[in-house]
């Protein structure tokens, strides 16, 4: 306690012995920042791979309306992702992924509202916003599960599916072949959205932990809500990654 006190009172003496914070951020927050930076490298590796492979493959040259699935050219994303739950046979390109993006951005907003409530020491508000963030996270995960299931089943109309070497339509997507395009397309879909989904899942687990600790009054007793900020950084990062995945995988 006295050492902590001294840090603010006699910084000069302790500058080189761990007594000062050169970046004006706590140890925990700094380590979260540098962890997120290293996680950026991992996600970038996946996106760099996607960019490289996608543009080294044959692109579809014809008009958008006449597009057809084939293993010899890269699919147009809005032709692959065009289904919405409960709307059978309705073509709604990218609508569902747009809803998912909105859910994740909104859960990022509720997270930052929880952090703001933490700064004011308002326990009830932190609980409320954390709960909304957790609900947003679960909704996103559920949507992604639906998206994966739909992707793996492939187009309902087999006439639309890409053909294999023998001219038979390919049923169902896996890591070896898929009805939409070259094998790498499904591989990259599974790896990129799967890796991101895993991050969302661990983020939801951390959020539940924070909610529990807030509800039991741990942060009130501790006197600060810094843990909400640290987990908040992680949650915003997950949202940030989705912004990039959305652009590069679904729009480009």
């Amino acid at each position, binding site marked *: 306690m006295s050492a902590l006190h001294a840090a603010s009172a006699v910084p000069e003496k302790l500058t080189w012995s761990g007594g000062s914070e050169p*970046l004006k951020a706590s140890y925990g927050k700094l380590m979260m920042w540098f962890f997120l930076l290293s996680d950026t490298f991992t996600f970038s590796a996946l996106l760099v791979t996607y*960019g490289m492979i996608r543009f*080294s493959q044959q692109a579809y040259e014809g008009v958008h309306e006449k597009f057809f699935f084939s293993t010899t050219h890269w699919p147009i994303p*809005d032709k692959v992702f065009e289904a919405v739950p409960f709307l059978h046979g309705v073509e709604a390109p990218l609508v569902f992924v747009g809803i998912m993006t909105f859910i994740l*951005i909104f859960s*990022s907003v509720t997270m930052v509202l929880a952090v*703001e409530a933490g700064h004011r*020491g308002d326990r009830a508000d932190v609980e409320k916003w954390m709960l909304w963030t957790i609900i947003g996270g679960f909704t996103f995960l559920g949507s992604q599960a639906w998206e994966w299931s739909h992707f793996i089943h492939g187009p309902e109309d087999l006439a639309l599916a890409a053909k294999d070497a023998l001219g038979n339509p390919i049923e169902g997507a896996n890591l070896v072949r898929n009805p939409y395009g070259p094998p790498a397309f499904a591989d990259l879909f599974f790896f990129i959205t799967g890796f991101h989904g895993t991050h969302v899942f661990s983020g939801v687990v951390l959020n539940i932990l924070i909610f529990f600790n807030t509800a039991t009054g741990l942060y009130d007793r501790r006197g600060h809500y810094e843990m909400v900020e640290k987990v908040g950084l992680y949650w915003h990062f997950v949202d940030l990654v989705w*912004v990039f995945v959305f652009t590069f995988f679904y729009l*480009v």
Partner: protein
Amino acid sequence: MASHGHSSHSEEKVIPAPQTAAIWKTFWILLILTAIEFIIAFTLPANGIRVAIFAGMTIVKAFYIVGEFMHLKHEVKTLIWAILIPTIFVVWLLIALIYEGGHLY
């Protein structure tokens, strides 16, 4: 409200009013940018210019998420650069390999 309950151990505990104007402003910016991306996806033909527009808009969105939500804009300069410089190199690698991929084909 609840502050009456434990006023015994902290009598000065008055919860200030929320300051959320900047948060909601950032939210609307992100939402509008995403909506514009949607419109572009269905109106502009797929080409290099469209990819560049998407990449640029994504970086603007990233700026608002990292700057406002993650609060990096309000940290000290050293921390900002420590995060930003490695990221700039990574973005360069991403753009470079998209370009190189086009030459492989």
